[in-house]
């Protein structure tokens, strides 16, 4: 076990939850730093310079959402928020405040590890081009020539469909909120027009997924947004 692995700051007020998560994080080579309150989290974030932050939104001292905003000011480390089912609004708010992903309680260790891996992957800076070829779930996208294949067959996408797919590929593995995608693909005027996004996502699924009602690639995050699954 490497002592020099990435540092995970675990912000969680329940001792039991910390005790349950610690061993699996350590077993995967992470150094675990813990905080039980928002204030401790801020101190640890400033002092230990974590590589990724796991933040439970239901902290006792004040609003978890406030902590997201304050953490964002002291560190650039990606924040994965943890919250319960039914708190979709909080998730969206946390993501809008700069959290990079979320996990819904209760979650499995496999899911947690996958989220951390994606969060630790360096984000592309705005001008930077992604790898020229994307492959997942039987779909191949040549980003350089803007061509899309399902198996061996080329698929024709409309410009909007392609922009949507390319936006998701750019942030693959990560959740993208409805607002983020609408602004990226349709522009700021469309930020509330969620039905556009849903309809085009449906079209994309019908062109790319084997079973559009059981997607493998274009995953819905209910009431939050979408995620392009790449593993």
């Amino acid at each position, binding site marked *: 076990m490497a002592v020099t692995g990435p540092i995970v700051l675990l912000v969680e007020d329940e001792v039991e939850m910390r005790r349950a998560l610690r061993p699996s994080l350590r077993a995967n080579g992470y150094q675990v730093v813990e905080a039980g309150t928002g204030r401790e989290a801020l101190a640890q974030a400033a002092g230990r310079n974590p590589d990724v932050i796991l933040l439970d939104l239901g902290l006792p001292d004040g609003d978890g959402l406030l902590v997201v905003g304050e953490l964002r000011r002291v560190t650039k480390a990606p924040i994965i928020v943890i919250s319960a089912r039914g708190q979709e609004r909080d998730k969206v708010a946390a993501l809008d405040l700069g959290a990079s992903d979320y996990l819904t309680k209760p979650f499995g260790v496999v899911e947690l590890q996958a989220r951390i891996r994606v969060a630790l992957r360096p984000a592309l800076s705005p001008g930077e081009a992604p790898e020229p070829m994307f492959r997942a779930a039987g779909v191949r996208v040549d980003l350089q020539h803007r061509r899309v294949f399902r198996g061996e067959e080329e698929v024709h996408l409309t410009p909007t469909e392609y922009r949507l797919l390319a936006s998701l590929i750019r942030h693959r593995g990560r959740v993208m909120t409805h607002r983020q995608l609408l602004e990226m693909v349709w522009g700021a005027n469309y930020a509330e027009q969620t039905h556009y996004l849903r*309809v085009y996502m449906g079209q994309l699924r019908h062109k790319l997924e084997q079973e559009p009602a059981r997607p493998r690639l274009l995953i819905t995050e209910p009431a939050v947004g979408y995620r392009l699954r790449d593993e």
Partner: protein
Amino acid sequence: MTPIQRPWTEYLGAIGIIGTVMAATLAVRQHLNTIDVAMLFLLGVVIVASRYARGPSILASVLSILCFDVLFVPPYYHLGVVDSSYLLTFAMMLVIAVVMGRLTARLREQADLARELAERNETARVAMASERLRTALLSSLSHDLRTPLGAIEGAASTLADQEEDLAPEVRRELAETVLEQSRRMTRLVANLLEMMRLETGALAVRRSWQPLEESLGVALLRLEHTLRDHPVTVRLPQDLPLISADEVLLEQVFVNLLENVARHAPAGTPVCIGAWREEDTVVIEVADQGPGIRRDEEEDVFRKFYRGGGSEGVTTSQGSGLGLAICRGIVSAHGGKIWLEPGVTRGAAFRFTIPMTAAPPVLMSESMDTGVPPWP
């Protein structure tokens, strides 16, 4: 319960009755002798006394005496009597009014008491029935909560106390028990919370326009493991309109219906999910090829904590008994209906509707050129 309407309506009633007697008697006075007339007025007094309290009865008798005296007893149109035997008639009228009035009052009191007793009995009966139901629910609920907890505690304490003595595969099995049972607990608690939210009206429906396929897709993905033994067919028409619904709740309806299938239909039997437009609603169907549901249970299955069972060849259900009740709550919150389609020859077909309260938004069409898109 008779409200206290005695005061003036009863006095008016008494005046009305005696007035009627007087009018009737005047109309046919040629054919009557004085005794008949006295009897008719007495009848009036008896009627009043049998219906109203003592006050109006006395009023009726006094009125009768006055009418009788002035109109029918010589000297006519004059108070006072020639024959003193009429005084006895008057006195009798008064006595009858008082006695009858008291009798009526007592009868009325007894009727009130009887009614009150009956009501109290009914309340007690309902209270007892709901108490029995509550006890039954509590005992089934505590069983449902204790069973997985017991399994978790047993497996975990074995792991904690005898770790070194256990073979790796035993350890693994115990860990899997903990995992499986805690998932069962999670489902149960989630259902209980959802039911509470529905019943306390704390459930907020956040509608948005969406293709039905999306929520269905989330549900199918969530249930990938649960439905592994049931091939799923989805038939949605291309032109199915967008629906206005809460995606998280809609997904829950699908999850509950499909979990129900997985629980009751034998492994290997298929599930068919379809939808179509019917007038102002979209109808959604989840049909299985399981043992079906008996006609007399078609409504019961939507009841809280009701568990179908007894179907041969199917393992005892492990559900919370809340799934379908939650479905009904969610669908009603959307203004729709959910029912078990009768007359299905094989398996069970659940149907629910999502009403189309408004026209779905129109999307501006995109030119269908497939040329190189503008990017970035």
